[in-house]
């Protein structure tokens, strides 16, 4: 009868922390990329690459430190997320380094070798991960910053409009001398914090104060206001930043969180109608979006007699087949430019480790998402639930939008594959995202403190249980 006071969904008193499981998985998460690294070296130069020891030690050190910090500061956190993130990041580094070995796409004009930079960003990402775990003792602290988050997210989202477009989309801000930043990646987290805070307060109003119309519960105008603002904002992102991905991500994130908060299916219908209508309208008028839709419908069509990036990516996937060409032996460089390292990195994955490898990578993402939603289920406070599902949902949508775009399932958008693709903002932001999820899951899985032994209790009880 000692557990009657425990109300958590998962943990029972004395629940295992699973830190040793995490450690064992982390060993694999480090060993696999190291083997991949050696494999590339053998394929390209017939020798074990010189940097392998440094790479192994570096990745091992990052993973080891991350593990120790989790052990100390978030001992009950989910054991799977850190290894999966480490593995994806490690493989991403290997693929970028592998593409750095192709002189045609590693010219100074294209920014030269990118693996060292990516390694630095990954280190920064892990540092931020550690920072979040150490300094964010309780995720509910974030609830205090609901409206500041809103302002910050808006600024981050609007900022790229004032910077020149790159590769046809305005999703970067360029700081001279430092480099460029994709604020959308950070906005993703901050806006999830805002939505979680806002919806936690407003969910009852949104769920209950509504009129019934044709079987659907329609919200009151004053509750609808903020939602339409978000919708308008996401459409504006689409129009002014010509980026379908970010737009889809934010609107989808909002609909998911709204649905979870209110438990009203009508929000989904409403959200889908709004986003669908908006997307179609913009796709019709915006030239840039229209081109991408055309590319999607006719992936192999020649453009001015030349093979398009889309077609090259499809050729990469097709040539990879089931088992792939082997690491270092594909020709995804034919995609050209830095695209194979960033947006199209999945094409390299598909070509070199084949359908088998690509499915494994996608399942790793699926696993990470699933653990995130599990954290939401296990979380005890509504803010934690909303934040966890928001972050995992955003992650899932991003994976879907990018992978779907590259493989031709949906029109291509300008986002990057979390952890895998080249890009500093992305890797840093996603490590922070994983850190917040770990913090929530640590809170959720931590056993409830045993009730303080009270000497009075024994005496006053007439009937012993």
């Amino acid at each position, binding site marked *: 009868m000692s557990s009657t006071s425990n109300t958590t969904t998962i943990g029972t008193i004395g629940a295992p922390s699973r830190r040793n499981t995490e450690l064992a998985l982390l060993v694999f998460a480090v060993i696999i990329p190291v083997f991949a690294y050696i494999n590339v070296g053998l394929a390209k130069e017939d020798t074990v690459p010189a940097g392998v020891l440094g790479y192994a030690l570096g990745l091992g050190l990052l993973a080891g430190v991350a593990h120790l910090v989790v052990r100390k500061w978030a001992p009950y956190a989910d054991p799977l997320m850190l290894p999966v993130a480490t593995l994806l990041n490690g493989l991403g580094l290997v693929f970028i380094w592998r593409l750095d070995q192709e002189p045609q796409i590693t010219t100074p004009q294209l920014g030269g070798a990118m693996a060292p930079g990516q390694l630095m960003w990954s280190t920064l990402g892990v540092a931020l991960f550690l920072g979040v775990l150490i300094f964010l003792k309780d995720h509910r602290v974030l609830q205090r910053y609901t409206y500041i988050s809103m302002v910050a997210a808006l600024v981050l989202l609007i900022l790229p409009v004032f910077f020149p477009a790159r590769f046809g989309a305005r999703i970067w801000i360029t700081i001279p001398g430092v480099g460029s930043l994709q604020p959308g990646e950070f906005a993703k987290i901050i806006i999830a914090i805002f939505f979680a805070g806002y919806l936690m307060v407003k969910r009852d109003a949104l769920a209950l104060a509504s009129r019934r119309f044709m079987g659907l519960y329609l919200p009151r105008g004053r509750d609808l206001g903020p939602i339409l603002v978000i919708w308008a904002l996401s459409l504006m992102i689409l129009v002014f930043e010509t980026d379908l991905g970010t737009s889809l991500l934010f609107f989808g994130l909002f609909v998911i969180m709204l649905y*979870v908060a209110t438990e009203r299916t009508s929000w989904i219908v409403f959200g889908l109608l709004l986003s669908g209508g908006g997307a179609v309208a913009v796709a019709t008028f915006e030239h840039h979006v229209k081109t991408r839709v055309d590319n999607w419908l006719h992936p192999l069509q020649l453009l001015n007699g030349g093979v398009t990036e889309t077609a090259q990516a499809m050729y990469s996937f*097709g040539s990879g*087949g089931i088992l792939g060409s082997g690491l270092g032996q594909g*020709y995804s460089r034919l995609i050209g430019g830095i695209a194979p390292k960033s947006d199209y990195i999945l094409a390299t994955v598909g070509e070199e480790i084949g359908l088998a490898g690509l499915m494994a990578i996608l399942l790793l993402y699926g696993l990470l998402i699933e653990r995130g939603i599990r954290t939401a289920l296990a979380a005890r406070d509504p803010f934690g639930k909303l934040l966890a599902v928001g972050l995992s949902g955003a992650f899932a949508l991003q994976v879907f939008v990018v992978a779907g775009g590259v493989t031709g399932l949906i029109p291509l958008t300008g986002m990057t594959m979390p952890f895998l693709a080249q890009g500093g903002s992305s890797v840093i932001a996603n490590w922070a995202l994983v850190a917040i999820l770990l913090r929530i899951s640590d809170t959720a899985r931590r056993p409830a403190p045993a009730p303080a032994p009270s000497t009075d209790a024994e005496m006053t009880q007439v009937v012993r249980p």
Partner: protein
Amino acid sequence: MNKPLRRVAIFCGLLVLALLVRVNWVQFVQADELKNDKHNRRVAIERYSIPRGNIIVGDKAVTGSTTTDSGDFKYKRTYKDGPMWAPVTGYASQAFDANQLEKLYDPILTGTDDKLFFSRTVDMFTGEKQQGGDVVTTLNAKAQKAAYDGLKGKKGAVAAINPETGAILALSSAPSYDPSSFAGMSDDDSKAYNGLLKANNADDPMLNRALRQTYPPGSTFKVVTAAAALENGLYTDIDAKTNSPLPYYLPDTAHQPLNNEGNIPCKDASLREALRVSCNSVFGKISADLGNDKMIKEANEFGFNKEHFTPVRADASVYPKDNRPQNAMAGIGQASNRATPLQMAMVASAVANGGTLMKPYMVDKLVAPNLNVLQQTQPEKLSEPLKPENAQKLQDMMETVVKTGTGQTAQIPGVTVGGKTGTAQHGEDNKDNPYAWFISYAKTDKGTPVAVAVVIEGSDTLRGDIAGGKLAAPVAKAVMEAVLDGNK
């Protein structure tokens, strides 16, 4: 809040599932299509990542490979005596794909063929680079040279076959081109290639005339007509008088005569005599007497009306359904029937081989890098257009043509040569330069090693039936001599 959360979880699961289904679609269902798409550069990169296997004639390679620094490609194809061998090898170009043997045997030459699986696996373990296999042809280098030299400066084609096996010994087309000139991918290569295209070059040098151009066969077709007469029992004795009036009027016409070339003794001439002097009236009447169906049947027996794969495709020669006057004209090769040089060489070879037509082929065997034979072509019977005794009679007739008739220029001392000349009129009112034809075979006591067909376009000065004997027969003779020399 847990119920919607579970639904969100399912939704996210569906997103991942959709991705998994999609990648299976792209990398499994569509994979082969994408992999071999003509715009997928990997095909060419693969082709030139190793020195290609060679196309071999006799025991010498007529192709080679050289290293290049042109972008993605490590190697480039080279050709020895490119123009001479182009009708056999075809080309393999970094920029312009490949054709003929280079294309058909690309998997062998690049070493990716399934037949080379074992060799590849061994290479993998011994750490050797993948190697290409070789394609060994049946061609005879001396005969090919004789044919190429004979056509120099002219427009035409030569096809020579070993009648006993069907092995192709010479395959020449003039004017030719040098496949080396556009094997790479530079601007010069593009310029060379564009200069050879039919649109930019009236001579159309990339046309393989021996296999892909059909000509009116002219009087050489009389051999087929004679065969039809013998096979159908219209005449059995080649020295007996035929029922041939002079002038002979085409059937169903108002006294439209089928004229002979000059004043030759064609009235009731025997088959032997009619072939010797090339009587249009006699053979026109034979064709008319037999009728369109029987003529088509005999022509088909010789290989007309169908494509042949040597394995390089040869266009179908045609003997179509037609009305009676046209069918009579077709009997002398001067109507809607057309033949490739290869087809006419097949006609000569069937007669020479006792009436049995062997399937023409130009690839003897495929050889793995370790010299194992992967595939050996076995001679194959295609049909039997003539009974042996009729073949004997027809040989007699053709030998008379060379001994005392229009084909005397093809005589070779000490060798029995049978042949038939032809001069095909063409163009409106026959005002274009005629095609000079000669088909023949050479026989020794050791067998019948060669049958040959030569066609030369546009002999300006010679319009008479002697054009075939004057222009084409010496080339045929040179080719036959080259083969006979090698057999000594």
